[in-house]
C-alpha cells in the first residue's frame, strides 16, 4: 500500500509538472519529482519497492519527455541499484541529508545519460545543453525533496504507520 501511495504521488507530481506548471518560468531549473520517491523507497522500503517505483517513474518520465527510448528507464533503475548498494554507506538522518542525496543523484543521472549516449551512439550532441541545466536541476530537486520528505513522513505518521 505504501509503495502504491508513493508511486501515485510521484506520478501525479510528474503529470502536474508537465501540464499545470508549464506556464511558470521554471525552464532553467526543472525539478525531478520522481527522484525523491525512488531514493526514499530504495533506502527505507527495501529493494522490491525501490525497483517497482523506479520502473514506474522511469516509464512515466519517458512518456512525458522527448528522451530516447529506454534512457529514463536505464537511468532510474541505475539510481535504484546505486541506492541499494549505498544504503549502508550513506546515512539519512533528516530531510536535509535526504535532499543532498536526491540532488547528488540528479547529478549522477545527468552524467550517466551522457555516458550512455556516448557509449551507444558515439556522440553526445546534447552535452552543452545538459551541462547547462544539470546543476540548477540538482539544486532545485534537492530543495523540493525537503518538502517531499516531510510529506512522506507526515503520511507515514498519520495514515500509513501501521502497515508492514
Amino acid at each position: 500500500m505504501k509503495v502504491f501511495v508513493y508511486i501515485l504521488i510521484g506520478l501525479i507530481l510528474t503529470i502536474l509538472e508537465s501540464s499545470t506548471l508549464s506556464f511558470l518560468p521554471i525552464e532553467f531549473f526543472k525539478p525531478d519529482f520522481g527522484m525523491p520517491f525512488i531514493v526514499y523507497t530504495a533506502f527505507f522500503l527495501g529493494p522490491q519497492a525501490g525497483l517497482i517505483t523506479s520502473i514506474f517513474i522511469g516509464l512515466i518520465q519517458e512518456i512525458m519527455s522527448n528522451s530516447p527510448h529506454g534512457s529514463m528507464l536505464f537511468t532510474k533503475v541505475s539510481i535504484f541499484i546505486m541506492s541499494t548498494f549505498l544504503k549502508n554507506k550513506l546515512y539519512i538522518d533528516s530531510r536535509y541529508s535526504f535532499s543532498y542525496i536526491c540532488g547528488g543523484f540528479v547529478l549522477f543521472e545527468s552524467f550517466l545519460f551522457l555516458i550512455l549516449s556516448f557509449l551507444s551512439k558515439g556522440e553526445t550532441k546534447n552535452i552543452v545543453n545538459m551541462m547547462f541545466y544539470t546543476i540548477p536541476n540538482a539544486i532545485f530537486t534537492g530543495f523540493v525533496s525537503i518538502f517531499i520528505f516531510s510529506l512522506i513522513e507526515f503520511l507515514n505518521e498519520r495514515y500509513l504507520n501501521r502497515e508492514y
Partner: protein
Amino acid sequence: MKNLITIIIAVLILATSFFIFTNTPLFVKGYVKVKGAIGEIAGPTLKIAGKPTHFIGYIFNSYFNLIGTKKENLALKKKLETLQLENQKITELEKENKRLKIILNLIEQAPDSMITARVIGEDIKNWFKCIIIDKGRNYGIKEKMSVITPKGIVGQAVEVNKWHSKVMIINDTNSSVDVYVEGKNTRGILEGTGQTTLRLKYILKNDEVEIGDKLITSGKDGIYQKGLPTGIVITINRNKPGIFADIEVMPYNNFKRLEEVLILKR
C-alpha cells in the same frame, strides 16, 4: 535471497533498457508497445490535469500584468513611435503577405489538410524540448507530420498515441530543418540548441546573409512543407576559423507560450 533476486531482475532490466536505447529491433518493438499502453492511460490524465492550467495561467499573468502596468504604459508609448516608423515599411509587409498567402494557399488547396490541437503539456526534462498536444491517432495524426502556428513552424510529431501526441520542437538538439533565406539564394540547415535561439549551419562566409533576414523552409528535408516561416537572423559571426559563418536565429514562435497549434496532414 529475495533481495538478491530483485537486484538480478534490476540488472536484467538495466541491460534490456540499454539495448532499447541502442535501438535493437527485438527489444524496441515490445518496449514501444508497453510504453504506448501506459501512454493511453497517461494521455487522458494529462488532459484533465491540463484543464485548470489556462485558468491558473490567467491569474498568474493578470497579477504580473497589474504590477507591470506602469512600465508597460511607458513601453507602449515607445512602441507606438516605433510602430509609426514601421508602418512605412510596406514593402516588408508585402513580403510577409506573400508568405502568409503560401500558408493560406495550403489550407485552400485542401481544407482538410490541417488539424488544430491544444497544447496540454511540455517536456518534464529541460534537456529535451517537446510539447504534448491533445490530439492523437484518433484524429489522423501520424509521425513526422509538421506542426505550425500562423506565426511559423513549431516542430514535428515524433510519438503518436491514441489520445495525445508528442511534438519535437525545432529548438530541440535533435531537430534539423532545411531552410533558405527569403529573397536570397542561400540555403542552410537550421539546428536546435536546446536554448531559445537556433543555429543556422553550413552557410559560407561569403554567402548573402544579413541580420534581420527571414528564413523559410525549403521543403527538401521531406518533413516540413515548402515556404513555412521559421525564424529571423539575429547574429552573424564571420570572424571564426573555418569556411562557414556562425549564425544565430530567433524562431518566430515563443514555445513557452503556445496554446494552440496546427498539424499539417501529409
